[in-house]
């Protein structure tokens, strides 16, 4: 227990990822959904960084950087879309995204 190994981090990563998934499933508000997505990305980052550390390889960190970059882009585009949506419908509730429903 006292010696922290890769598995510890992977379990932590799993738990965080699991929390993120729960969030994605039960959230109705789009912004909260985004929050859950960020948790997913962070969970993966922890995994990447841990593997990178335990295997003495920087690739994991690199991927973590790219994940952060992706998160930032997702935020920029996502928030832009949300603002447009909110301007048009006055709400960002998931239930309002029904225009594609047959």
């Amino acid at each position, binding site marked *: 227990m006292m010696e922290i190994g890769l598995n510890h981090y992977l379990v932590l990563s799993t738990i965080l990822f699991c929390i993120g998934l729960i969030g994605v499933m039960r959230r109705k*508000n789009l*912004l*909260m959904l985004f929050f859950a997505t960020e948790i997913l990305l962070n969970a993966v980052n*922890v995994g990447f960084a841990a593997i990178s*550390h335990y295997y*003495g390889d920087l690739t994991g960190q690199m991927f973590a950087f790219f994940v952060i970059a992706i998160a930032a882009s997702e935020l920029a585009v996502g*928030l*832009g*879309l949300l603002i447009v949506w909110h301007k048009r419908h006055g709400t960002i509730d998931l239930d309002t995204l029904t225009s594609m429903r047959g």
Partner: protein
Amino acid sequence: MFEAVAFYLFAFLTITMFYITVTTAQALYALSALAAGMIFISAFFFILGADFLGAVQIIVYTGAVMALYAFGMMFFDTTREVKEKNGNKYIVVGLSVLAAVMIVAIFSAPIISTNMQAFYPMIEGAGNTQMVGMVLFTKYLVPFEVAAIMLLVAMVAGIVLAGKKMDLSLTLLNAEEIQAIEDEKNKKVLS
């Protein structure tokens, strides 16, 4: 020992924070907890020797991403209670656990095997920042540039999407111009 204590402490804090984020109905709690969780995640990076990654995590995630989310919250009028989907709680939790375990298992399966080779092993005597720099600007130069372009595109997209009519300032317009805008709005509603 410090490492273990730090790990368990931060693991506990991170899980708690993220749990609060996904369960609370108070949007402000979610935001605060998520931001705190991000900072605690960066602690893992520091423990794991990825100092630069940790600093970037703090600056980018907490300093920028969360601030933008807060901005968005003020925009969307969700600073208070938020509604939630009324699904079966157990199914949601069960499915999530299952999916998480599977995904992590799939991705980590090859890693756990012992015959792993480091593509870019650590260089002795160089700090983490230097190594990151070296690897990033050599092996990952192209992805880096692509990521940079992606960020630029995202930024432009964000500005274009959200920034329509953002340059209008009602305080600087005169009465007639404001009336014209009002009329335009009304016309849309009427038609």
